């Protein structure tokens, strides 16, 4: 690339302080940016967790995103030695950082579909505020020279515009400016001046990019006295100084070690990023956005433009490749189901689970102790399993052999576990056997590491329902659990983004519909039978009465069709999860009502809200049955957990009656919402749900066409 970019290298640069500075910063800043990849992404019990701990868990797009800072940083360092023109180097720097940003963004989205999301330290770094700082630093510097002053002023304005956008846009939660105002508003509530000072410092750090951007506007009126104005220096290093003070303050009181190292590394990294970006912008804008000075030997702009085209092409190419890698998994399944047999049940329940338990014991023992006996046990159990699979259906044996052999690895990553189990599932599906294995990975943090426990559950597939969703295939499996696991699942079904189908748990649905039938038969009817909840107040009692009445009506109308209808509601719910995937637009209602809750709560409620609203639109089930489920979640709750919050917000989204405030559930709102719903006909309620979904997610629910049901 350097030869192509430097086709006029003979012209050589003249004395160019900005260019010289950029070259120096490219070397130091490049290394600093590359640090983001090699720094531990988190510290568990004082032990750092590095990239190599996670590498196996990330898909190609996620891994590329994780490596992006290192690739960009080292590329910049290399370019600083190879590329001779400052403008070209600046464009390479900007291009490398932009490409890294795109890689990270797409990789973070892609890894959300995967088992393990990209660590927040990489996937959710605050690039926009850092860009504000870099623009301010660059803009203030550019105002020094007459030739670049106007461009510099434009850059300063751009920094402010970007800052305003960043601070006022709530994104997927609370807008940063709201958070800062809230923080400052609480200063008077804390008892000690040291806490007050702490709150103020945190608010200053939060608002720092905005403050610096605003201060940078000074140079709209007063040009910078030199090409290294104070505002630029503060923009580049001020945040690092502030954060450095906090780290320094924390050292005496904190257990030193990787935590401190990690914090210092992060400061170095962000400082390098800001400084590098600012330097590159100064050179690039100085070259491209303004005619050369009278003393210039030649106009460097044509060469810079050509370089820009090359860089842009490279960024597009890299981004395109990442876009391809980041495609979500395909959905839907073709499955010809044979009838279940006792031999199959025994293989997938007793034999397989015995191996899985042996593997789990070995995994635990081998990490904490010697584990030789456990290793022999898991080998023996593996042999038994493969032999049993061979006897049951020879076409399954190779997948089981691979599963047992390759999972005998203490470094087994979750992705590999899922792949191995997926291979078995694929062999099962290809053989038409009616079984499904659901792999799970539990991550437990402690003892200085994040330990993963690899488990699976075994299900007998009763039927496969296939759907066409606006041209895309989707599916749900109706299953019975056969692995002898203890305790009923609290869920009626589940959906994994990685899997091509959702799971509907028939035994749990059976229990659910029995509870509904009991509630409908009660006098007066109640929809709380078996839920373990009691109304919090009189208003909620009214809500429960209303709910009981429309439950009784729905059950009476359904008669023997109740189990099928209950399954259809769950089917539609889980199908919506499959359609949504992990990245769902943030519902305004969720963003507003849960602004102060944790991000994870917000995200999970947002996903569940989509599915709960969608389940009311199922054509093959009365929507009031789905509304009963919302009422069971909402009535009697404290509004603190995911599902009750979702139930409350779903009812509010449907009717507009407030059901959840900061103080907790609103009984009156709940009663009014259920009363309003009860008056709806089934079609009216479906339409109401569709409208609510559209309001919250900014689009219409996709049209779903049930295709066929595959049964043994």
């Amino acid at each position: 690339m350097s030869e192509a970019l430097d086709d006029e290298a003979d012209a050589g640069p003249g004395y160019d302080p900005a260019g010289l500075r950029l070259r120096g910063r490219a070397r130091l800043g490049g290394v600093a940016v590359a640090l983001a990849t090699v720094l531990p992404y988190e510290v568990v019990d004082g032990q750092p967790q590095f990239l190599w701990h996670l590498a196996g868990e990330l898909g190609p797009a996620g891994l590329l995103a994780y490596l992006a800072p290192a690739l960009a940083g080292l590329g910049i360092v290399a370019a600083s030695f190879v590329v001779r023109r400052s403008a070209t180097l600046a464009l390479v720097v900007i291009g490398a950082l932009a490409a890294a940003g795109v890689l990270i963004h797409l990789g973070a989205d892609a890894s959300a579909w995967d088992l393990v999301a990209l660590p927040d330290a990489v996937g959710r770094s605050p690039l926009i505020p850092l860009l504000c700082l870099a623009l301010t630093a660059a803009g203030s510097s550019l105002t020094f020279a007459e030739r670049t002053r106007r461009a510099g002023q434009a850059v300063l304005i751009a920094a402010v515009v970007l800052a305003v956008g960043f601070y006022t846009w709530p994104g997927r939660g609370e807008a940063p400016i709201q958070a800062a105002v809230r923080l400052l508003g609480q200063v008077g509530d804390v008892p000690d001046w040291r806490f007050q000072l702490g709150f103020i410092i945190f608010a200053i750090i939060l608002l720092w990019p905005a403050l610096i951007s605003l201060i940078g506007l000074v140079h709209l009126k007063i040009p910078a006295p030199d090409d290294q104005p104070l505002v630029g220096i503060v923009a580049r290093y001020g945040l690092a100084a502030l954060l450095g003070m906090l780290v320094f303050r924390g050292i005496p009181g904190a257990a030193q070690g990787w935590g401190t190292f990690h914090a210092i590394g992060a400061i170095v990294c962000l400082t390098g990023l800001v400084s590098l970006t600012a330097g590159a912008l100064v050179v690039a804008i100085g070259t491209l956005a303004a005619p050369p000075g009278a003393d210039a030997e030649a106009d460097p702009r044509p060469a810079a433009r050509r370089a820009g085209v090359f860089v842009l092409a490279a960024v597009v190419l890299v981004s395109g490749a990442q876009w391809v890698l980041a495609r979500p998994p395909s959905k839907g399944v073709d499955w010809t189901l044979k009838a279940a047999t006792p031999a199959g049940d025994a293989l997938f329940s007793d034999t397989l689970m015995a191996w899985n338990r042996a593997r789990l014991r070995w995994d635990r023992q081998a990490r904490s102790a010697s584990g030789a006996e456990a290793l022999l046990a898991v080998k023996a159990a593996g042999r038994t399993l493969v032999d049993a699979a061979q006897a049951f259906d020879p076409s399954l044996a190779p997948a089981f052999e691979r599963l047992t052999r390759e999972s005998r690895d203490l470094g087994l990553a979750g992705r590999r576990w899922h792949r191995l189990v997926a291979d078995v599932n694929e062999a099962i599906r290809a053989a038409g056997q009616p079984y499904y294995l659901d792999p799970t990975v539990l991550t437990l943090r402690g003892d200085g590491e994040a330990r993963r426990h690899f488990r699976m559950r075994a299900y007998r597939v009763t039927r496969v329902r296939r759907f066409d969703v606006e041209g895309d295939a989707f599916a749900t499996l109706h299953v019975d659990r056969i692995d002898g696991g203890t305790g009923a699942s609290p869920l009626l079904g589940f959906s994994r983004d990685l899997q091509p189908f959702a799971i509907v748990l028939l035994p749990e649905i059976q229990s659910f519909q029995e509870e509904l039938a009991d509630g409908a038969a009660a006098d007066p009817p109640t929809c709380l039978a078996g839920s373990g909840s009691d109304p919090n107040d009189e208003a909620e009692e009214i809500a429960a009465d209303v709910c009981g009445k429309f439950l009784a009506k729905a059950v009476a109308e359904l008669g023997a069709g109740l189990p099928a209808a209950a399954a259809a509601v769950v089917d539609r719910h889980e199908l919506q999860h499959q359609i949504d995937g992990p990245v769902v637009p943030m519902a305004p209602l969720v963003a507003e009502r849960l602004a102060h809750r944790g991000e994870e709560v917000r995200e999970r409620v947002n996903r569940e809200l989509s599915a709960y609203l969608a389940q009311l639109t199922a054509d093959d089930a009365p929507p009031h049955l789905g509304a009963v489920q919302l009422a069971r979640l909402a009535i009697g709750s404290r509004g603190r957990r995911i599902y009750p919050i979702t139930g409350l917000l779903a009812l509010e989204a449907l009717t507009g009656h407030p059901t959840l405030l900061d103080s907790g559930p609103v009984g009156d709102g709940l009663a009014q919402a259920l009363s309003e719903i009860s008056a709806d006909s089934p079609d009216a309620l479906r339409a109401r749900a569709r409208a609510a979904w559209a309001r919250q997610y900014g689009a219409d629910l996709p049209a779903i066409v049930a295709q066929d049901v595959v049964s043994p």
Partner: protein
Amino acid sequence: MKDTDIAGMGEEPEYRPRSKAPLAIALLVVLLGGGGWFAWKAMTTTDPFRVLVAIDFEGQWFEGSKPAARLVDDLNSQLEGLGFDVVRGGDPAVLAVLEDNAGDLLAAARKLKASYLIGGRVAVERVQHEVADGGYTEVRANAGIELQHVDDATPAKMAIQSWSGARDPERALMLLADGVFARKIGAAVVPALVDHPTLAPKLRGDGADKKAMDAKTTAKLRKAEAYVQARGQALSTAAKAYAAFRLRRLEDEKGPRPVSYHGTTAEEDGLIGTGPDGFLVKTADEELYVNPESSQMRRLEAMEGLVWKRPDDQGTVVRPLWTGYNIYSYPGVTADGGVAALVEDLFGWAKTVTLIGRDGKFQRLRVDPKHRYSNLTPSPTGKAVAFYDRECRRCEDTLVVLDAAGKPRFQADREGGRFEGYAWLDDDRLVVMHTPATRLGGEPPVDDEEGEEEEDGGAEAAAAGDAPPTRMFDGVDQTIWLLDIRNSTVVPQSLYVVDEGQSLAWVRASRDGGKVAFSGRNQDGPAIAVLDVEARVMTFIPTPGPTEAPVFSPDGASVAFNVWPRGQGRDAEIGLAPAAGGEVTVLTDNPHDDRYPHFSHDGQRIFFESRGDDPNFPRKRNISFIASVAVAP
């Protein structure tokens, strides 16, 4: 020079920068060389604290032996607890290396970065007991454990024994691999590791050796070193306590004859008899063990045994006759030591009647899960054995005589009364002392439909060839009976009826069968009684206190016994009396318990058990070692 300079003036000097390539190449070579050297060192250097355990126990664990795997896990756990870095067997990468280097474990150790290899082999002896349903498997392990540094030419060797048992043979092996065996191996191996010439100087030395390892590294093994020191100290203290106990015994002895002790004083031996080789004891040894966790001293039970020991200072083992889980009650042995008889307790599943020859070959005459056998007494030449047989815990004792092949020769119920002892006069005649039910305050058993029973004269009637009496021992008082078991119908003959005011216990016959000695008392007080079988005359020899366990000298001229002399506390001493009657000599005088005397084969000394409280485990364990005292002054 100047000309040249002048000539050169005005020309632009050519500037040729010195090429940096050679320097760069040299630097690269140095870097690559250094990196390669470090890489090579990193790949080949072993960790000074890393240990590979690979003991062949029914095969190696990496070959699939489960007991070996369990043993490895247990040992690894012990070693890790003490700070060693072990090669963990659960790692499949380790398994792969071991499978690839199965024939050369030292090479495997090197590849796994281990500096030490704990290897060797466990020889397993399986003893199948046909008891219970499906039998019971006893396993005995003789481990030859080897410890070797990867650079050592030869390993250090350690021998360790252990045992276990279970109905399922595989479970027996797994139980063996658990716990005690591994602890014994650990207790032997850890000191050997810490004291190994490659490690000890680094841990304990100073100067270069100490500096060779940084403090953090050596600190890892501080616990191991502390354990080894604590263990050494504890064992040394225990040994000193036993030695002191022995000295104290000697000092405490105030008797008229010098007493010799034949043991370490840590034994819990029961004296069975004597023979040309020395004395026969039943052993119940316990091995001292120091727990690495608590540094507390514990006892690990060894198998029990029947052992001939030499009467030297230490009581050296001459010949083990038998070892097993448990010996139930005291075994018996013929006067010449040729045949022993014992009751084996087969792990609680059954009891046996076992005869053991001089060569150690044994024969189980009876094996039964319910019957309880006791007081096994072989006949003088070992052709028969007499014993009590109780069918259940609350059942009556039956006196049974079997021949050496296990064929029943005689059997008699106690008939509601009580057998007080018996002794062989020869291979066919037994003297039996029986106390009838009426003397015990009970009613004699009803033998026939009418409830009638003969009051007396039964013996005479039988002798006259009439129908045998319904009760064999039909005396009204404690009676000494003579049983001649050669006849198909055994009719007891009354040798002596114990008078009012007399009581007898313990029955021991002289070697020639002419006399029988008893502990007892008569109207004058405690006495040793000697019965002349032929003359049916009982001689009471007054003793200075109550007695027990009389035994004849080989020539039958003297009787030794343990006696509690009045006024000398509650500890028994060894007494000696002429069998024909005369003055009793108390041969020992000490504040300890001396009991169960046996004359030496030549009759010159009397061996006995000297008992006491274990000085290292007071009030928790009794010790019993063998002592002897000269008969003649």
